[in-house]
C-alpha cells in the first residue's frame, strides 16, 4: 500500500541518517530529504529539530499548486498527511517528517468503492435471476418437507408425502421422511397393541382378584356360618326335645298343644335352614371325592322325594342304562338332587302337576370347550328335572341361584336350595342351565363331568 511504502522509506532514511551519525551535513540531509520526494514516497519532507528545521528543497512533481502556496504540513482536513519518525542526528533528537498527498488515495478509494458497488450490483442482478430458479427447485420441496414433518409431529400419519423435485438430495430426504413415518406408524401400532394387552391383562387380573376376594369372603362367611350353625344346632336340641315332652304332657284336647306343635315345626324349619347354610358354606375338598354311581344316588333321592311329596304330584324317573360314574361326594350329590326336586315340587304349588327326572350320558365337549375345563375333557352326565309348575320370568331366572332369593312365602322355602345346588355343581366342575316359561313350567339341566367306570 502506498502509505506503507512511505512509512518504510521514511524509516529507512531515518536509519541511514543515524548511521551517518553526526557527520551528515545539512546539504547531505537535504539530499536525503529530496530523495524521499523524488522516489515519490512523499510530497516533501523535513527534519525537525529542537531549534531548526531542515527541509527538502524539492516538492514532488505531483504536488500541484496547492503546496506551493502552503509549503508546510497540513493537519487533518487538508489533503496532506505526514509521517513522523524519530531520528538521532548530531547527538540530538530530531523528527523526520514525511508528508504525502491524500488525494490520490481518495481517488483510488472512490474508484474501489465504485468497483465494489458495481460488483454488488452485479451480484444482485444474478440473485434476482437465480432466486426464482432456486425457488422452484429448492424452496418448494423444502416447504413440502416442512409441511410433512409438521403433520407427522402433530400425529397425523396418514398423509402421503409427495415432493416434486429433481434434486437427488431432496428425493432421498423425502424417502427418509416416508421411512421414518412408516416406522413411527409401526411403533405407534405396537404401543397401542401393548396398551391393549396390558389393559386386558389388568382386566383379567382384576377379575381374578375379584374372584379371589369373593372366594375369600365366602370362606370367611363359611367359617362364620359353620360356627353359627353349630351354635344354633345346639340351641335347637332343647327346643325340639322340650317341645316334644311338653306336647306329651298336655291333654290331647288341650289347645296349647297346637301352639307347641307350631313351635316344634318352626324349630324343624330352622334345622333345615341351618343344614342348608352349612351345606352352602362347606366345601368338600376335591381330595375327598370318590367315584359315585349317580344313577343310584338319583334313584335313592327320588324315592325320598316321593315320600315327602303329596300323592297328587306325579314324579317320574328315567335313567339311561350304563350311565357313567362321576367324581364327587355322595352326600353332596344326593343333596343336589333333593334340592332340585324340592324346588320343582314347590313350583307345582297347588296344581296337579308332573315332575320328570332324567339321567343320561351326553357329549357336550365342544359346547363347554372354552368355559368348563372338566366338561370339555370327555363325556358328561346330564341330569334334568322338569316341572309343569308356575314357571319363572326372565328376572327370576337371573336371580334364581342367589342365596336367600326366593319367590315363596315366608316359611315355605329358605331360598338356599338352589344356591346350594349351584355351589355343588361348581365344586364338581359341572354346568347348570335353566329353561322356563311362565305358567308352563321349568327345566333345570345339570351337566357333570363323567369318569371312567370302575
Amino acid at each position: 500500500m502506498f502509505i506503507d511504502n512511505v512509512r518504510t522509506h521514511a524509516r529507512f532514511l531515518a536509519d541511514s541518517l543515524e548511521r551517518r551519525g553526526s557527520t551528515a551535513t545539512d546539504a547531505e540531509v537535504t539530499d536525503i530529504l529530496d530523495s524521499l520526494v523524488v522516489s515519490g514516497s512523499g510530497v516533501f519532507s523535513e527534519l525537525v529539530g529542537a531549534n531548526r528545521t531542515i527541509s527538502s528543497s524539492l516538492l514532488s512533481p505531483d504536488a500541484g499548486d496547492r503546496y506551493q502556496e502552503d509549503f508546510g504540513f497540513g493537519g487533518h482536513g487538508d489533503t496532506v498527511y505526514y509521517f513522523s519518525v524519530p531520528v538521532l542526528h548530531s547527538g540530538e533528537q530530531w523528527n523526520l517528517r514525511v508528508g504525502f498527498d491524500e488525494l490520490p488515495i481518495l481517488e483510488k478509494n472512490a474508484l474501489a468503492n465504485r468497483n465494489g458497488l458495481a460488483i454488488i450490483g452485479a451480484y444482485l442482478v444474478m440473485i434476482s435471476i437465480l432466486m426464482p430458479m432456486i425457488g422452484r427447485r429448492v424452496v418448494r420441496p423444502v416447504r413440502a418437507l416442512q409441511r410433512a414433518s409438521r403433520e407427522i409431529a402433530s400425529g397425523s400419519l396418514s398423509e402421503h408425502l409427495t415432493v416434486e423435485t429433481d434434486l437427488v438430495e431432496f428425493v432421498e430426504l423425502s424417502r427418509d421422511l416416508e421411512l421414518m413415518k412408516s416406522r413411527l406408524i409401526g411403533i405407534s401400532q405396537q404401543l397401542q397393541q401393548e396398551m391393549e394387552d396390558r389393559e386386558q391383562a389388568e382386566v383379567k387380573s382384576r377379575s381374578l382378584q375379584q374372584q379371589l376376594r369373593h372366594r375369600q369372603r365366602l370362606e370367611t362367611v363359611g367359617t362364620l356360618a359353620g360356627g353359627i350353625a353349630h351354635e344354633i344346632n345346639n340351641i335347637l336340641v332343647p327346643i325340639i326335645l322340650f317341645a316334644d315332652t311338653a306336647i306329651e304332657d298336655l291333654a290331647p284336647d288341650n289347645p296349647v298343644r297346637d301352639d307347641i306343635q307350631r313351635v316344634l315345626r318352626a324349630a324343624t324349619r330352622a334345622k333345615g335352614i341351618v343344614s342348608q347354610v352349612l351345606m352352602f358354606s362347606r366345601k368338600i375338598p376335591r381330595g375327598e371325592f370318590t367315584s359315585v354311581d349317580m344313577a343310584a344316588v338319583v334313584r335313592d333321592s327320588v324315592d325320598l322325594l316321593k315320600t315327602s311329596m303329596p300323592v297328587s304330584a306325579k314324579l317320574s324317573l328315567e335313567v339311561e342304562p350304563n350311565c357313567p360314574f362321576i367324581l364327587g361326594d355322595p352326600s353332596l350329590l344326593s343333596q343336589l338332587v333333593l334340592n332340585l326336586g324340592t324346588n320343582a315340587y314347590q313350583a307345582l304349588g297347588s296344581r296337579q302337576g308332573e315332575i320328570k327326572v332324567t339321567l343320561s350320558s351326553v357329549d357336550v365337549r365342544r359346547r363347554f370347550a372354552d368355559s368348563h375345563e372338566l366338561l370339555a375333557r370327555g363325556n358328561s352326565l346330564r341330569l334334568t328335572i322338569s316341572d309343569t309348575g308356575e314357571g319363572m320370568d326372565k328376572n327370576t331366572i337371573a336371580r334364581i341361584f342367589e342365596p336367600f332369593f326366593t319367590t315363596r312365602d315366608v316359611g315355605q322355602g329358605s331360598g338356599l336350595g338352589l344356591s346350594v345346588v349351584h355351589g355343588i355343581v361348581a365344586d364338581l366342575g359341572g354346568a347348570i342351565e335353566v329353561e322356563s316359561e311362565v305358567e308352563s313350567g321349568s327345566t333345570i339341566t345339570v351337566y357333570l363331568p363323567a369318569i371312567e367306570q370302575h
Partner: protein
Amino acid sequence: MSRILLIDDDPDVRDSVAKVLSREGHTVTTVDGAQKGLEMIVKEHFDVLIADLIMPGMDGVQAIRRIREVNGGIKIIAISGGGDFGAKRYRPHAITTTAYLEAAADAGADCVLTKPFERADIVDAVSQFEGGE
C-alpha cells in the same frame, strides 16, 4: 333300662336329652366335660355313653377312647353339631361330615347322631343297644 352317661357342655342339651331319656325309664347322669366324665366312669358303671366328639378345649376322641379303656363294654353314641344334610330319614342315623364320621370311627363310636335330633331318634339310638344285653 340303661344307665346312661351324657357328656355335653350345653346345659340345655343336657337337661332336654336327660328328660327325654328319663321318660323312657333310663337312668341318666350328666356331666359338662370329658374330664368329669372320666371321673364318673371310674366310679360307676354305665351301659351307654352319649357325648359330642367336638368339645371345646379338649380332644373328644381321646377322651372317649380312654373311657372305653376303663369301661370296655360301653356303647357310645356320638352326637355332632355339624348339621344335618337333609338325608337323615334316608339313613337311620344322620349322615354327617366325613371328618366327623372318621373321628367317630376313630373313637370307636357305635352310632352317630347330628344335632338337633328328633326325640324319636335319640330314643331309638339308645334302645337299639338294649336288645343285646
